[in-house]
């Protein structure tokens, strides 16, 4: 295979600085939001004692899940030896790191006591999945860092397969950990399922690749790099398979619940009666995040359709996590089965929640942080190949 030539992006144009400026503004707004939430207390948000994890967590979990998924392209190249993906591996690793950084920033800044982050780094309860995740996340940075080093440094290239395998396994464990944050919650019927771990893994494949595709198309488009059909076709098919897999897991999850009598109320809530949650499920998650992308990916071969599909996957993913995280809390806990329950503490009723400006600003700030880090990194180090035209990429497996 011909050697791939990488090159930093120019990064001197007005457009580049306009992009960085816009992202910086969003990051600043996110910081202001975080400061407000920390200073005033969380009552300024839409969150309450019943919905303790809100919009920031939707964004944070989305970014963290997408981060591990963004690494897939690199894994396919290094571990599974697909030459076609090799030129994309560096960008894949970069996005994995920046998306995780954005997600963690949101998660940390939403804490009730973000000033005590050091406590989280010095006191551990090893039975807590959160505690494992602290190690999984920081370890992920380290592993992907080393992995990227083996990709960049020619003398270390031969190690990239081994390190890439470690990175792949690490990211699978990481997403299992993220899914298990919810999957191990015995107290809440909407979670409490081992299925959430593999579901989160396939979600990560799908969301991560969608973001990767959009960033790749934007970066190539804006820097005048050729991006050939061979690469796009492969990414298109891959994304289609991932989207379909997510739909499959979601279907299995719901079908299981539909079969079990004690989960019928739950399914009625999420599929039909739960107001905004069924609407987001059917229109956001299933239609926009699932069926429409499948149509766009397999129905046409246009670049615009691919970009639109990737955007739909992202929107659908956010809807899915909104339903899962917020809907899962809004659905009343079943403390007394067979009883109608009422109290002054919102027992037995669907908890009200509406996203507030600070929460959305914080979440969007995290996305902006991830993108800004990516944009800066592309300028500083040669992450992108000079060309991804059909003749320049490893055609042997195309």
């Amino acid at each position, binding site marked *: 295979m011909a050697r791939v030539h990488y090159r930093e992006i120019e990064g001197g144009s007005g457009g580049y600085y306009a992009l960085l400026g816009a992202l910086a503004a969003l990051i600043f707004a996110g910081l202001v939001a975080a400061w407000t939430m920390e200073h*005033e*207390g969380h009552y300024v948000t839409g969150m*309450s004692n019943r919905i303790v994890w809100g919009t920031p967590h939707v964004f944070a979990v989305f970014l963290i899940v997408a981060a591990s998924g963004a690494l897939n392209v690199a894994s396919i190249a290094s571990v599974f030896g697909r030459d076609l993906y090799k030129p994309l591996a560096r960008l894949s690793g970069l996005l994995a790191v920046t998306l995780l950084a954005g997600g963690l920033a949101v998660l940390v800044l939403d804490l*009730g006591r973000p000033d005590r982050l050091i406590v989280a780094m010095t006191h551990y*309860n090893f*039975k807590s999945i*959160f505690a494992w995740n602290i190690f999984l996340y920081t370890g992920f940075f380290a592993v992907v860092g080393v992995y990227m080093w083996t990709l960049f440094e020619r003398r270390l290239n031969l190690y990239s397969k081994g390190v890439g395998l470690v990175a792949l396994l690490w990211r699978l464990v990481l997403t299992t950990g993220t899914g298990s944050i919810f999957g191990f919650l015995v107290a809440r019927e909407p979670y409490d399922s081992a299925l959430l771990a593999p579901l989160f893994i396939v979600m990560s494949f799908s969301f991560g690749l969608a973001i990767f595709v959009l960033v790749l198309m934007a970066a190539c488009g804006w820097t005048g790099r050729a991006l050939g059909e061979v690469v796009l076709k492969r990414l298109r098919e891959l994304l289609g398979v991932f989207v379909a897999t997510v739909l499959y897991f979601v279907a299995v999850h719901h079908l299981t619940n539909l079969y079990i009598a004690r989960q019928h109320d739950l399914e009625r809530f999420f599929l039909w009666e739960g107001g905004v949650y069924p609407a987001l499920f059917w229109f956001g998650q299933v239609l926009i995040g699932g069926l429409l992308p499948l149509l766009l990916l397999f129905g046409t071969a246009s670049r615009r359709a691919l970009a639109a599909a990737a955007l739909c996957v992202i929107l659908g993913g956010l809807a899915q996590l909104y339903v899962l995280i917020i809907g899962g*809390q809004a659905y009343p806990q079943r*403390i007394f089965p067979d009883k109608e329950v009422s109290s002054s503490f919102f*027992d037995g009723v669907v908890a009200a929640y509406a996203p507030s400006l600070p929460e959305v600003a914080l979440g969007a700030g995290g996305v902006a942080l991830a993108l800004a880090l990516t944009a800066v990194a592309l300028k500083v180090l040669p992450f992108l190949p000079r060309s991804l035209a059909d003749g320049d990429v490893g055609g042997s497996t195309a």
Partner: protein
Amino acid sequence: MNPHRRQLLGWGAAAAGAALAPGLRLIELAQARSPQEAASKLQRWGLLIDITKCTDCDVCVTACHEENGVSGHGRPATDAQWIRKVSLRDKRTGYAQTLPLMCQHCEDPPCVDVCPTGASFRRDDGIVLVDKHTCIGCRYCVMACPYGARSVVHEAVSGQKAGVPRGKGTVESCTLCVHRVDRGQTPACVEACNRDGGKAMAFGDLNDPAAEIHRRLKSEPSSQVRADLALNTGVRYQGL
């Protein structure tokens, strides 16, 4: 303290209680631990709540929030509640009941399992607490609690009670009035219920054969909320 002495003191206290006024239990505990004595695994503090005696009143709630300085800001969605009255209605028969619900002080508390820093912990004598010094406010414990017993302090607090620290950004819940228990008193809710309410609540050491709560649990039917989760709660109910 040796068990024999405990028992004697227990009987003495019971006799004193009976002498003071029937039904009015001023002294529930055998004796306060000395300040130099750590909470012991030999004890397991708990509550027994007979909801057939629980009336529509909420003196337990008022007393708890007064004792612990839990005051709201007129925002029900974000104001903390350490204990609440829950009304139940059977879906088929319409049979109505009411009961106080608070932290159930599980032996295997899910909130303790999930806490990343170990701030949520179970003291040796079975009281589940939040160490607010190490709570980072992640709220994972609120997600994990099967009883919806925990609150997040959503805004700055002032005017805290001396033995009961509370602060913005951390999670809190019923402490079983640990500051009172360590002084040898009963929790505020129990005291109020037996003074002004339906006399439905009893407090004591589940492990102490001499304790009323132990004897009643041994000889009368009782149940745990969400017993299916096998958490072995320290708070037990009768008539549920």
